């Protein structure tokens, strides 16, 4: 982790917020562009989930993390509180590692 990465991204993240809230203000943005931008989290978060569950570096690895993902998926779908999802998902992985 480098300060250059943290500070440069901090500046960009704030600039993006300013762009929407202060610069663009009430001007309108094409509906299709707006729909596309709002889809980015769905695509990227799903990509991060499978990357962090099924890969290690550039290798595909299947291990106890899958159990944590399944537990988190079920609890998220049932609208469990955030803390419950995190502790149950991480706990399930740790338990499986301890006994497997």
């Amino acid at each position: 982790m480098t300060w250059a990465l943290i500070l440069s991204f901090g500046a960009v993240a704030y600039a993006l917020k300013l762009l929407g809230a202060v610069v663009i203000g009430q001007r309108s943005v094409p509906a299709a562009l707006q729909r596309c931008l709002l889809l980015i989290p769905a695509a990227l978060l799903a990509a991060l989930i499978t990357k962090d569950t099924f890969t290690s570096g550039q290798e595909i690895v299947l291990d106890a993390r899958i159990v944590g993902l399944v537990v988190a998926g079920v609890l998220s779908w049932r609208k469990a509180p955030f803390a419950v999802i995190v502790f149950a998902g991480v706990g399930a992985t740790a338990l499986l590692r301890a006994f497997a």
Partner: protein
Amino acid sequence: MHYFRAPEARRVVSASLVIGVAFVVFGMSFGVLAVGAGASVAQACVMSLFIFTGASQMSIVSVIAAGGSPASAFGGAVLLAGRNAVYGLAMSPVLDGSLGSRLLGAQWVIDETTALVTAEDGDERKKTVFWVSAPILYAAWNLGTLGGALIGNSIDPTTFGLDAAFPVMFTAMVVPHLRTRNGRRAAAFGAVTSVALAPFLPVGLPILVCALGMLFGLSPEPESGPVRTDGAP
């Protein structure tokens, strides 16, 4: 500060405290994982203070922890942070005060404050909700980060199954984005593409390719609702 004396302020404070508890837990998880990925306690805290958008912060830590380059970590985080610019369009009725208040308020335009504000009717109520909830959530996120970073500094994260904390938290964060048909399509594309490309591209780059899933937004949604998430800024 007069917004804290508005008639509906108590209701907003209690709603914010509920989300605030989730923010403390998520902030702590972020702090632990950031330190585990090689950040110092100061670096983790500066990230939460100045970046304050959880999905991007987590994605940076996730890519760095997996051995990705700073450039690819930066790219994925920028794409994730782009939605805050879109949220700003919905927040303009709230941010119409002095330049100073707009510069401060802009930093607090995130998933949760946008969801809370868009759920209210009337500009005055929207303002109360924003200026009451945002500082509570900001404080919760940063206190959680500090606590997590201090804990992370004194334990070995790998012994607690904390590598599983990344997919677990991203799962909790993605579910609200799956309510629409295009959201589910984009997520399916991202999930498959990310693993399929992993063996062939440097760590961090497949995530950037996955952003192409946003193109599903070119086709209109049959029905659409407001985007909101639970527990992460």
